[in-house]
């Protein structure tokens, strides 16, 4: 559905996209994960033919997209990072206006607008002006304006920034629902939990480069960390830490502030082995956490820095 090849974009001396390649298939929820400034929004703007780029090609629905490719734009819905609505129009008027930029037929548009309102749960706020809405409701209005015309491809650029957890979950559920109804989704975020929760395929971006692409399972398999074990309130000496580091599948053990963090490659026996060693040495300990690797671990291993650095 979208094919980006060798895309290069410079802002003066800054290289925003560095020979980027991406392919989005129909029906996917494709996540672009990366820290602020990694090039996520620049990719989106290139897909929408808003930005000039220096090199490469961007094909949407099999065609090179240009500013005047209105037949392609008709099938695309965009939810911006910044709320893009008219302050002077009510909730209903805004949705109707932006839907009207795609759907000229009045009756058809009315039906679509009502569906978008129901989908985003804005029925009670139809006559409200945007400044009267809370942050979460405003984001929902932003989404309604972007998806009311039922596009084939929906691009959501960090739609949950500054949204409370309850509204965030509602928005994420809504996105999955849109995908179930047949829309392909491109979702950019620097919240790895969100991307992990909804995306079927993920690309990790940093400094304009695509560092890794795959499903979340594939990405996690790419890294060494299979399991992370954290043990609270434990007192160890250097010798004991060294011993833990030599346990099978353990490739890192750090003891800091009476907290032990052990990274292991994936194996079902890691936790049992570690706890057995502590019991055997009669070392008392507090709470024990065992976690599967997160996308943050993936990002950390690939780039050498945390996602929110």
């Amino acid at each position, binding site marked *: 559905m979208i094919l980006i090849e060798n895309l290069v974009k410079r802002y003066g001396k800054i290289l925003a996209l560095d020979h980027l390649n991406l392919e989005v298939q129909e029906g996917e929820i494709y996540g672009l994960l990366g820290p602020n400034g990694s090039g996520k929004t620049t990719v989106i703007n290139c897909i929408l033919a808003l930005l000039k780029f220096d090199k490469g090609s961007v094909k949407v629905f099999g065609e090179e997209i240009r*500013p005047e490719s209105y037949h392609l734009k008709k099938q695309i819905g*965009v939810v911006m990072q910044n709320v893009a609505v008219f302050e002077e129009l009510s909730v209903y008027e805004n949705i109707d206006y932006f839907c009207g930029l*795609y759907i000229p037929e009045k009756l058809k548009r009315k039906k679509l607008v009502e569906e978008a309102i129901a989908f985003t749960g804005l029925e009670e706020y139809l006559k409200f002006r945007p400044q009267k809405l809370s942050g979460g409701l405003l984001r929902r209005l932003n989404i309604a304006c972007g998806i009311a015309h039922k596009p084939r491809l929906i691009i959501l650029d960090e739609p949950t920034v500054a949204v409370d957890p309850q509204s965030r979950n509602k928005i994420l559920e809504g996105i999955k629902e849109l995908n179930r109804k047949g829309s392909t989704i491109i979702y950019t975020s620097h919240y790895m939990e969100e991307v992990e929760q909804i995306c079927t395929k993920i690309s990790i971006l940093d400094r304009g480069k695509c560092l890794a692409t795959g499903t979340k399972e594939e990405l996690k398999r790419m890294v060494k960390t299979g399991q992370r074990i954290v043990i609270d309130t434990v007192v160890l000496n250097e010798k004991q830490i060294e011993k833990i580091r030599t346990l099978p599948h353990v490739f890192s053990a750090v003891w800091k502030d009476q907290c032990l963090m052990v990274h292991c490659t994936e194996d079902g026996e890691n936790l049992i082995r570690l706890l057995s060693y502590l019991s055997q040495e009669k070392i008392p300990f507090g709470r024990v956490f065992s976690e599967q690797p997160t996308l943050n671990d993936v990002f950390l291993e690939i780039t050498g820095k945390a996602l929110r650095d």
Partner: protein
Amino acid sequence: MLHLVKYRFLQIIRMRALMFWALLFPVILGTLYYFGFWKNANCPQLEMIDVAVVAEEDSPFLTFLEGAEDLLSFHVMEEEEAEKALENGKVQGIYTEGRERTLTVAATGVAPSILETILKQYNTNERLIEKVAVEHPERLEGMMDSMKAYRDRTTETSLGGTVRNSLVEYFFALVGMACMFGCDLGFAVSLSSNADQSPVGMRRNISYLSRGKIMMADFLVVYGIHFVNLWILICYLKGILRIPLGEDNGKILLLCMAGGMIGVSFGIIAGSIGKSSGTHRLNFLTLITMLLSFFGGLMVQNMRHIVDKCCPLLNAWNPVALISDGFFSMTIYEDMARYWRNVMMLFGMGMMFLVAGCIVMRRKRYDSI
């Protein structure tokens, strides 16, 4: 298209600050001008001058003074009584008839000058009548008639024959300024049409409808609103404040159309070029508008004429001066060739800005957003 026009219209008229500057500010300024100088200049409140006259009751001089009753309040008195009244300040002068007609005043000033002028006029007329009666008695009647018609002929008239009050130029410049204030409307529309200026602009840029169509709808709405605003201002100035902006409403309408177009299109082009913040550019736009208004005569009555002498090129390209001159040509000179030249110039400049704005905005692909 109707859909775009409807919502754009609602959106613009709900922008209170914008509507204040585009509509209310010129109306308020017009009202201040009216009460500040126009009303006083057109309704002079001259005080009656009290004067004592020492003369026989059947004196022709008294008949002459009766003709100046809107200026003088004369009281026939004995000489002593008159002197007392002058001393007490009850009268400002004494006309005394004897072998020679004299005027006695207690001080100098406007009132004594008027009294002196009136006396001089009477004496001149008297001598003239005596001379004509002796030398050309057959022409005496004609001369008396022409003397009666004297006041009518000395009314201030313009070159074209319309009654002129030069202060009306302030109102011409005010309409010019109001036309240019349309740039705020054009600027607002331009900001919400450019992807690098606002999120709404971004959303509109990636829609299915062509930019040309969206821009056309936007222009029609702001131009329509601005034209109605201008017409409300004209109706207020002409209908309520009774400012003589011209009798031909059709020509005023055309001048407003041309002026309104240049205002709106100037705002559109200003909003389309450059990448500095909207507030900075709006401030700059306001500065330009006020400068053009200043040179167009909004604050100094003769400014346009001064600029005409010092830098005629500025007047030729200043929309406010052109609009003001358009009114001037209509009402003062009654020079329609000049009026049409101004209108064509305004339409030409408006079209130039509009076309430039369209070229900049259409098919625009941004270097950065």
